[in-house]
């Protein structure tokens, strides 16, 4: 009996000893950081500068320290997945920036303005340069998987000078049969030497023109990059026939997109519609037979 108790006790002790705590503090409090604006598009002459500011806000339920810094900004595929690694041969844009502060402490609900100046060196070649101003939380290290958060303001800087502005709409695709969410896809290319910003206005209206939903996007198209712009109708209709219209304004021109019609229906709805059509066909066949019998 005593031996059994001893074994049990040893097992408990060993169990406690071998308990790992790779992450122990309970993930109770949520913490959040807000930045505004989310992007800045600015033309600056070489040798000149631009002054701006970002606003940061603590939307969490605990205070935290933060730091401010600049990282390169680039995109990697047609969906413009962001990448913050330095590009070989590209200038170090961090040296162009100076800040009113590079760190601070934010209390819950408080906000602060961080002023910055971008000095574009005199010898900068005309063209586009991209950077992101990051504000990163400095949560106190505890244990486990500790999550730091950073949000960024993307800067699209155009160094003034001779440049080629050239681009086109590559594709406008709206499949006629879709499931929720209805999604329109526009592809645009930039064959110039500087980025440009497009304004994409699309509307979805029901077949009879009764309800209209508007989408207004302002994507930046970077040089030598194809950009795929998906326009999903989030929380939109689950079923119905819709008409899609749209215009795209870019590089001083307005292009009207061809009108498209879309049937939105999920799988059960499609089965229901098919069954209904079959039933209708059967009814018509039976009705035809009845008419023929009556004529005889």
């Amino acid at each position: 009996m005593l031996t059994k108790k001893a074994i049990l006790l040893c097992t408990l002790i060993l169990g406690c000893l071998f308990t790992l705590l790779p992450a122990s503090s309970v993930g109770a409090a949520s913490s959040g950081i807000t930045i505004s604006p989310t992007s800045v598009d600015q033309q600056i002459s070489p040798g000149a500068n631009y002054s701006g500011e970002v606003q940061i806000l603590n939307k969490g339920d605990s205070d935290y320290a933060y730091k401010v810094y600049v990282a390169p900004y680039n995109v990697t595929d047609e969906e413009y997945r962001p990448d913050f690694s330095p590009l070989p041969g590209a200038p170090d844009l961090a040296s162009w920036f100076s800040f009113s502060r590079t760190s601070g402490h934010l209390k819950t609900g408080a906000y602060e303005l961080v002023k910055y100046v971008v000095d574009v060196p005199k010898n900068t070649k005309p063209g586009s340069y991209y950077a992101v101003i990051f504000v990163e939380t400095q949560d106190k290290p505890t244990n486990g998987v500790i999550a730091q958060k950073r949000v960024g303001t993307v800067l699209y800087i155009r160094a003034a000078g001779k440049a080629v502005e050239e681009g086109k709409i590559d594709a406008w695709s709206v499949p006629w049969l879709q499931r929720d969410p209805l999604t329109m896809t526009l592809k645009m290319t930039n064959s110039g030497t500087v980025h440009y910003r497009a304004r994409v206005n699309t509307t979805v209206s029901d077949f009879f023109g009764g309800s209209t939903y508007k989408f207004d996007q302002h994507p930046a198209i970077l040089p030598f990059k194809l950009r795929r712009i998906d326009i999903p109708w989030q929380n939109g209709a689950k079923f119905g026939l819709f008409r899609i219209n749209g215009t795209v304004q870019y590089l001083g021109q307005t292009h009207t997109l061809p009108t498209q019609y879309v049937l939105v229906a999920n799988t059960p709805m499609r089965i229901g519609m098919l069954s209904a059509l079959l039933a209708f066909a059967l009814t018509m066949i039976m009705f035809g037979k009845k008419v023929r019998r009556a004529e005889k």
Partner: protein
Amino acid sequence: MLRRLTAIIAILCWIPLYVVTVAADTTDTSTYGSGSYGDCNYGSCTLTLATGGTVNLNVTPTGSGLCTVQSNAVTVTTDDPNGYTTNFKTTTTTTALTSGSDTIAASSANESSPATLAMNTWGYRVDSTSGFGAGPTSSQTNGSVPSVTFAGVPASNQSSDLIKSSSSAANPGVTTDVWYGVCANSTIVPGTYTVQVTYTAVTN
């Protein structure tokens, strides 16, 4: 008889078309019947990134090993009509869970080809993103090796892994669960293991 049967089938088949409710809700100016998406003015859009705090991965190893899986809610809120992208990597070049000189290595799999967690490794997964598959992942403590796949979090000097990308505004916020898992057997030295990751959010 056949005519009656046909009529009944016809009625039954048409019913679903009339019971369907067409639901629509816009993200910003939300009135049924009309609306506009992503209507912040240029230069005034905001972006918020929030998380649920530190993740617990307590595990009590046995000879053959046990695994723990827990999630971290990552919420992005933005009125920017171009949408947003959220990604992450470790804060330093160290990807292992570390306790002094003891470590639990990160999974060697990546987001494109994630794999089942090996013993004495840790990793992450995001359901329905990259190569992870739909899941759904569920939390567990001191359980068996999870059937879902995991990948190692990339180091700070590598490209980030994707958590979520959306081409529309997220207002109200959109939450994505990042799942962390660890498997350990009795060869792991007991202790408090930590790693820091940095979540990043920018608008598209």
